[in-house]
C-alpha cells in the first residue's frame, strides 16, 4: 500500500494537484462541497497514517475520539456551569496523551510511545485552545463536525501551522468570492513553489549535503576547549539554515495548500533573520506556535499572577513568566537536557532583552540609534539564535557524551 510523508515527494504533489482540481472548480463557482473535502481529507490521512504506519493511524483515531469527548463534554458542561477545578481537570486530561508521548522516550531509553503519531502535539494545541476559549466564553457554539474538520484538516495536520478554531470556522463556513479566491490560488501556488526552493533545494543542500560532513569533522576535531572547533561553528550555521529552510518550506506547502482550499491558514514565518532582537524574533519564527504560547500560556499566567498579586513588581511577573513559558516550550520539544537548556536560554534571552528595551526607553537620548546599531542588532540576534539552535540540535550532546 502507498504511504507518504506529507509533501515528501513528487508523487504526493501530483496526487494533491489531481485531488484539489475539482475542489478549485467548485470554489470558483461559489460552491464548497463538504462531502468532497471530507473524502480527500480521508484519502490523504490514509496515505499518511495507513499502510506500514497503521499503528499510528489507530493511535490517531483513538486520540481524536478522546479529544472530541473532552472538548464536547466541556462545551456542554460550560453552558450551565463554570467551575475552575473542572476546567483545569479537563485541560490536564487533554494534555495527558501528549505528555505520555513526550516522556516515554526519556524513561524508556529512547523508545517511542505506542500512543504517539505524527502531529500529536499540533492536535493537542488545537484541542486545548478550543477548551480555553470555551472557558472564556469567547467560543459559544462548539460543533463536533467543525471541530473534527478543524483537527483533521489534512494540509496542516502533521506539523501545523496551528490555526484557531474560530478563525478556521469562519473560513470553512464561507466561500470566498471569485476575485478573492483567484488571489488565494495565486498566492497558494507561489507559496508552494517557494516551498520547493526552500525544502528540496536549500534544505537538501544544508541538511543532506553539508551537515553530515561537518558533523564528522566536528567529531574528529574534539579535544579542544569544550570540544569546540571551527567545524562545530560551521555545523551551527548549516543546522540553523537547514532547520529554517526545511520547516519554512514545509509551512509554505501547508499554507499554500490551505489557500487553494479557500482556507487562509496563518503564516508561520515572517523573515525571522532580520529581527533586531529576540522578542521580535519570536514574532517572526514559528509564529503560530509562539503566538499559541503567548496567548494561552504567557498572557494567562501573567493575568493570573497579577490578579492574585503574586509578585510585587510587574517586571518580576513578566520575567518569571518568560522563563516558565520558554521552559514549557523546551519540555514540549522533548525531555532531554538540550531541549530544556534551549528553553531556558530563550527565557533568559527574553528577560535580558526586555531589561535592555526598558533601559533604552528611559535613556532614549543617550542610546545611539543608527544604521550601524541596527545592523549590529540584527547580526547579534541572528547569532544568538543560531547558537540556541546548536544547543537544540543535540550536537553538543554528541560531542560531550558520545
Amino acid at each position, binding site marked *: 500500500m502507498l504511504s507518504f510523508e506529507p509533501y515528501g515527494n513528487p508523487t504526493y504533489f501530483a496526487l494533491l494537484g489531481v485531488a484539489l482540481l475539482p475542489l478549485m472548480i467548485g470554489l470558483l463557482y461559489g460552491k464548497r462541497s463538504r462531502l468532497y473535502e471530507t473524502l480527500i481529507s480521508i484519502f490523504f490521512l490514509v496515505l499518511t497514517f495507513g499502510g506500514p504506519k497503521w499503528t499510528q493511524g489507530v493511535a490517531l483515531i483513538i486520540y481524536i475520539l478522546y479529544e472530541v469527548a473532552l472538548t464536547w463534554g466541556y462545551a456542554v458542561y460550560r453552558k450551565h456551569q463554570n467551575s475552575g477545578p473542572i476546567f483545569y481537570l479537563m485541560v490536564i486530561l487533554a494534555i495527558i496523551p501528549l505528555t505520555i508521548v513526550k516522556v516515554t522516550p526519556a524513561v524508556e531509553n529512547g523508545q517511542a510511545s505506542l500512543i504517539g503519531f505524527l502531529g500529536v502535539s499540533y492536535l493537542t494545541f488545537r484541542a486545548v485552545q478550543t477548551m*480555553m476559549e470555551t472557558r*472564556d466564553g*469567547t467560543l459559544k457554539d462548539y460543533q463536533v463536525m467543525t471541530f473534527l474538520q478543524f483537527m483533521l484538516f489534512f494540509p496542516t495536520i502533521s506539523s501545523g501551522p496551528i490555526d484557531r478554531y474560530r478563525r478556521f470556522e469562519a473560513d470553512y463556513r464561507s466561500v470566498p468570492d471569485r476575485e478573492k479566491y483567484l488571489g488565494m490560488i495565486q498566492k497558494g501556488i507561489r507559496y508552494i513553489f517557494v516551498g520547493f526552493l526552500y525544502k528540496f533545494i536549500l534544505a537538501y543542500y544544508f541538511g543532506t549535503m553539508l551537515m553530515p560532513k561537518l558533523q564528522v569533522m566536528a567529531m574528529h576535531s574534539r579535544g579542544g576547549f569544550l570540544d569546540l572547533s571551527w567545524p562545530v561553528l560551521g555545523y551551527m550555521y548549516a543546522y540553523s539554515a537547514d532547520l529554517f529552510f526545511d520547516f519554512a518550506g514545509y509551512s509554505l506547502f501547508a499554507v499554500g495548500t490551505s489557500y487553494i482550499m479557500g482556507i487562509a491558514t496563518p503564516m508561520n514565518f515572517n523573515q525571522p533573520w532580520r529581527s533586531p532582537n529576540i*522578542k521580535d524574533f519570536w514574532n517572526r519564527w514559528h509564529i503560530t506556535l509562539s503566538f499559541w504560547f*503567548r496567548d494561552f500560556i504567557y*498572557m494567562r499566567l*501573567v*493575568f493570573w499572577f*497579577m*490578579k492574585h498579586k503574586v509578585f510585587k513588581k510587574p517586571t518580576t511577573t513578566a520575567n518569571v513568566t518568560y522563563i516558565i513559558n520558554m521552559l514549557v516550550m523546551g519540555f514540549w520539544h522533548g525531555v532531554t537536557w538540550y531541549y530544556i537548556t534551549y528553553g531556558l536560554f530563550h527565557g533568559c534571552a527574553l528577560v535580558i532583552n526586555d531589561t535592555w528595551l526598558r533601559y533604552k526607553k528611559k535613556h532614549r537620548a543617550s542610546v545611539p540609534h543608527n544604521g550601524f546599531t541596527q545592523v549590529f542588532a540584527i547580526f547579534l540576534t541572528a547569532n544568538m539564535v543560531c547558537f540556541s539552535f546548536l544547543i537544540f540540535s543535540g550536537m553538543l550532546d554528541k560531542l560531550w557524551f558520545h
Partner: protein
Amino acid sequence: MDIKETVLGILNDLTGNDVSGAMDDNLFDSGLMDSMGSVQLLLQLQGDLGINVPVSEFERSEWDTPNKIIAKVESLA
C-alpha cells in the same frame, strides 16, 4: 469621567508616554505595548471600568491603536 479619558489615562500610565497625540499609531509596532502591557490594560479596565475582557477576546489586531482600544472598550461597556 468618560471612557475615552479613562482609557487614555490607563494607556499613558502603562506606556509612560502621552499617546493622545498619536491616536492611530500602532502601539505594538512602536514597542510601547507588549503582551505584558496588554494584560495590565485588561486588568485596569476591569478595575477602573468594571469591564471584563477575557484574554482570548484580546485579538491583537483589534487593540493595537489608542483609537481602536477606545472603540473596543466603548463597545463592551
